[in-house]
């Protein structure tokens, strides 16, 4: 699943480690999410959306919807 986590993180000038700290996950988890290798759980996705002040569907992009 594609997502805009890297874009939003860079907009806030946060490192992966900083974002990980704010979300209480590891830097490696942030890296895996950003590269699309790992889709976060729903609670973590909501946490990410809350942190960036956006809606989940504007951050995580389902490739199958048109």
């Amino acid at each position: 699943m594609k997502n805009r986590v890297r874009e939003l993180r860079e907009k806030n000038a946060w490192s992966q480690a900083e974002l990980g700290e704010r979300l209480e996950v590891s830097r490696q988890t942030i890296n895996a999410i950003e590269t699309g290798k790992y889709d976060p759980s729903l609670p973590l996705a909501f946490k990410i959306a809350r942190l960036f002040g956006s809606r989940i569907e504007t951050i995580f992009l389902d490739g199958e919807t048109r």
Partner: protein
Amino acid sequence: MARFSNKRFNFYVMVLMAIYIALLWFLWPHLRDTHDLLWKIVIAVSPTVPVTWVVALMARRVMLADELDQRLHLVALGIATALVGTISLVAGFLAMGKVWRGDGSELFLVFPALCMVYGFTRLGLKRHFTGTWDFWGC
């Protein structure tokens, strides 16, 4: 529960494994000279105490890990269990059919084999998901 640092966790594991080796080297040889059944049992299973402690530390570490790391641990454990379980099943049938004559001491190898397959699988998964070879980092 406080999260373990890698350094602290590695230190505890090293100490416990040193105790395990010491028990095998210094206590186990006395097994042949001991005739009391209770003492025989105590000496025979004594090396499992530090190993069980290590397993408990690992379980605690997994419980405190984040969701990706927990997933990697569980997938690696699942693959290791399936593989080692299948091999044990084949070995069990071979032994029952008297094709392979084991004395049961081979069971000693099951746990280390499980740990080894788990370790390599976790390393591969970690590499796939995060692009690093860092085994302990979470």
